[in-house]
């Protein structure tokens, strides 16, 4: 089966008025025609298969939203091609509309003055849904996201978490085969995040919806995505499996040992280095490529009276932090798209 989304050599340049600093910069900008071109997306290519749930990551200003806007047909690229379910999104904007759903965490697609239910009815009409399908699906979503308590409340009075749940339903009501989620958990509490992840997992696994998820929350990624595309400065930094990414960037692992009737500062091991230690706790670091975990564990437990021991999982957050900082020196961050 061919990929449902194909992006090749996609580039987007923006040209903005060039405001040179100095005296009367504001006034001069009214008269000058000088423009500055910035490249927000710089020749990226990737493919997404039907039914995938892919994480689309990158630091602020990396070009994520610009890419998503080109995928949804809101922006026309400067060069390169995009096909989404066999269509060019910005050319067939209206027929593409039925293929995609989108949630932009920072802005809502709901009708601000009206109760949530009215927004759903407008979407029912807009996508010519038959009444039975509409009722069934709304019923399922209502149960999945606990909409009952606020479905008749005007959108302007909803909390952020409630509004986001409403937006998710609005995007999935007409069952588009592709769902774009742009920071759907931004600013939400743990419970609300959990609900939303549950819903996303269900529409992906249960309904086979292809999901493209943009987020800064690595918990979202770890819980939902098997594969990620990471971009910065408009270029792809990494594309592939989350586990492989960790393996590639995690060159050391940590073991934490606790002891009660023993001074932890005296702990040492031929297989691992002590990173930090106090009287009750010590952290040791080893290279997973040369040393197996059980070897270190056995060495420590056989020689010291340890009460508790934990091997820390490689943290995606650390991996991403390393990836961003190593590949993007501060000096290169001159223009922000």
């Amino acid at each position: 089966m061919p990929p449902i989304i194909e992006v090749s050599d996609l580039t987007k340049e923006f040209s903005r008025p060039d405001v040179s600093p100095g005296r009367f910069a504001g006034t001069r900008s009214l008269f000058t025609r000088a423009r500055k071109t910035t490249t927000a997306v710089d020749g990226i290519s990737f493919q997404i298969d039907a039914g995938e749930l892919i994480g689309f990551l990158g630091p602020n200003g990396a070009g994520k939203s610009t890419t998503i806007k080109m995928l949804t047909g809101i922006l026309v690229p400067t060069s390169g091609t995009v096909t989404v379910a066999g269509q060019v999104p910005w050319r067939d904007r209206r027929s593409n509309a039925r293929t995609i759903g989108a949630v932009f965490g920072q802005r809502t697609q709901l009708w601000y003055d009206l109760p949530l239910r009215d927004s759903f009815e407008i979407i029912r009409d807009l996508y010519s849904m038959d009444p039975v399908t509409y009722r069934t699906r709304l019923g399922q979503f209502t149960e999945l996201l606990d909409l009952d308590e606020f479905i008749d409340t005007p959108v302007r009075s909803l909390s952020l978490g409630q509004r986001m749940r409403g937006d998710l339903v609005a995007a999935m009501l007409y069952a588009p085969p592709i769902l774009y989620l742009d920071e759907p958990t931004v600013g939400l509490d743990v419970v609300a995040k959990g609900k939303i992840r549950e819903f996303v997992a269900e529409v992906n696994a249960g309904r086979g919806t292809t999901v493209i998820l943009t987020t800064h929350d690595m918990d979202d990624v770890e819980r939902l995505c098997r594969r990620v595309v990471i971009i910065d400065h408009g270029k792809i930094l990494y594309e592939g499996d989350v586990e492989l990414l960790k393996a590639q960037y995690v060159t050391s692992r940590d073991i934490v040992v606790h002891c009660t009737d023993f001074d932890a500062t005296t702990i040492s091991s031929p297989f691992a280095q002590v990173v930090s230690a106090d009287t009750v706790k010590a952290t040791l670091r080893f290279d997973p490529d040369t040393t197996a975990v059980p070897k270190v564990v056995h060495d420590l437990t056989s020689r010291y009276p340890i009460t508790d021991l934990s091997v820390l999982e490689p943290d995606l957050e650390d991996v991403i932090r390393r990836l961003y900082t190593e590949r993007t020196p501060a000096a290169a961050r001159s223009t922000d798209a």
Partner: protein
Amino acid sequence: MPVDTLSTRLIGLRGFYRAGYRSVLAYRSDLLFGIAGLVIQAALTVIVWRVLYDGQDEVAGVGSATAVAYAVLGACIQAVVMPWQFSSLPQRVIRGQIGVDMMRPRSLISQNLAQSLGTIVGRLPIGAGGLVAGLALGGVQAPHTLLDLVASVVSMALGIANIMTINLLVSMTAFWTLEIGGVLILYRFASSFLSGALIPLWFMPAWLQPILDWLPFQAQIYAPLSIWFGTRHGAELLGTLAVQLGWVVVLFLLLQAAWRRAVHKVVVLGG
């Protein structure tokens, strides 16, 4: 994939139409204040015009009763079709929601027009309130003939189409300037003066008449009310309707051209 038919198009737009009138009804107290305001305005209009005429039968060939009735009807129509906020478009542009609107299976123009039609329908109770007040004070006249009534209803529909199109054009300034408060005030003033909603264009000085004739505003309220009061017959009546229709077509073409530029600005420059 569902095929676009006329019925799916209409049902799709029904959603926006409903959003329009439901948004008006959502703020019930605002609607009630609107009604009270227009009732007072209609009553004052009747009283002031009667005082102005001060026993004279005719001014500029227009009788006192006609002038009073014109002023009341003009105020009622204007209250319905000129909401304080023409559309949510400027807000949606500023908040960036316009991108979401572009991902809909209906065109941006039809979405906006359907919604503003809904807004107008939602504001009908305001106009009805003013009309009742005018009737109670004996300030409203019915058309002389059935033909005048039918023709003025057709003419009113064309006038409303004209107003909706210009309103949307004005709201679209937001694509370029973001803040449109100033434009709106200027437009509101010009339109209520030039459309004959405030003062019948009969009373305008002779040198201004040809300019007014060449502007689209006289086709909004002055034309249907002139027909209502039986001042246009036969060829002149048909001519008036033809000019109104012509304006609607021209304005709509203008609207489409403006939209293309606006969308180009959004999709190429990124809003």
